[in-house]
């Protein structure tokens, strides 16, 4: 449920990203400004992907993580601590698979092209 009208936050971000991308193609902008605007566009794209998909990813990995460490509550900090304290077998396939999937999802949000190249 949302009380807000369209465009949604995600759609507004799309509009801003499209605007910036079009502007950076204009010949009016100096090269150093284009570089900075491209960074701004990339940052907004991360925000949009996290807004669209972040909640679901967080929920999925909370469940998967709780199963992995066999505890009710899971957090990234708790997992890191268990690795640090040798409470997890770092050769365990389930553990490695979990971290791999988690990393893939993070890259899907931060820079999805990175997986393709």
């Amino acid at each position, binding site marked *: 449920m949302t009380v807000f009208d369209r465009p949604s936050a995600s759609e507004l971000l799309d509009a801003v990203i499209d605007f910036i991308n079009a502007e950076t193609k204009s010949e009016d902008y100096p090269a150093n400004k284009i570089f*900075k605007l491209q*960074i*701004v566009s*990339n*940052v907004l794209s*991360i925000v949009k992907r996290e807004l669209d998909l972040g909640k679901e990813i967080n929920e999925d990995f909370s469940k998967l993580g709780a199963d992995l460490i066999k505890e009710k509550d899971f957090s*990234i*900090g708790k*997992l*890191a*601590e268990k*690795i*640090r304290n*040798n409470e997890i077998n*770092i050769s365990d396939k389930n553990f*490695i*698979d979990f*971290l*791999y999937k*988690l*990393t*893939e999802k*993070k*890259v899907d*949000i*931060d*820079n999805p092209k*990175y*997986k393709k*190249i």
Partner: protein
Amino acid sequence: MQNFQEFLENSLQQNIKKLVPLTGGASADINRIILEDDKELIVRRSLSREQSVMAIPKKLEAKIQRIVRSLDAPVPEIIFEFSEDEEIGEGYVMEAIPGETIPRKILRDDKYANVRGKLSFEIGRSLATIHQTELDDLGDLDKVSFEDSLKKLYLVYSSFEQPQPVFELAFKWLEIQELINYENVLVHGDFRFGNFIISESNLESIIDWELAHIGNPMEDLGWLCVRSWRFGNVHKRVGGLGDIKELIEGYESISNIKIEKSQIDIWQLFGSLRWGVICMMQAFAHLSGSINSIEKAAIGRRVSETEYDLMNMIKHKNFL
């Protein structure tokens, strides 16, 4: 800047037409000096002690460049060094080497098509020359073992209090690797594309010596192979343009050190971890409020790229 320009003009005994700021290294203020006769020079300086925490003093940087150049490694000639007041800082003036440093241009522009094929071998050979530097001349340079590097990196990482399970795994993985204790050498410390000046026919120069130290020769080779410096050409392990075989052939063509590829793999993994921690450093420089920068904020979300690389190396033994 006015006083600095006057200082340089007095030292060079020539008028300066323009002083052009260039992108700095970790702790350097770098300017291109354009003299009245259009001859160009480069000045590198550190402005305060605070900025130089990670880097060696500029005086030592200049000394290393002089020594390495005497071995015929491609390094810019040092014109003069200075150590002045707080405003001028400490630094040196060196020759400006014509050529390109931007990796994407070197990788993609047609004019570099011919040189690309031989760069991997040339880089390997030049690195072997650097690694043959007599250490007796470098007594003031820190010796950094693999264990020390890991400990220091862990301290930096943990200081941000942002837990990264993949980094924790990588630290554990590195701790149990069997490292060959090669004889210590002069390590450049940031040996990668971006710090190479390339012309249409050659590797012209190796720059940015501020992270130099004494250590394991495989550190430079592993850092060079980190995926983050391949700029999209991931299947070419050496900077996105060359194969590791050519790099090793170039290195071994003038060195007695026999390279085990598995050792480069270990140091490459260390390099990805190091780059990940550096990304965190950049992001937290912004988050702490010390520098307000969109670039530094954005780089914090590149940590996941290094995690992805680390997991591919650990899970799939994939170093490409």
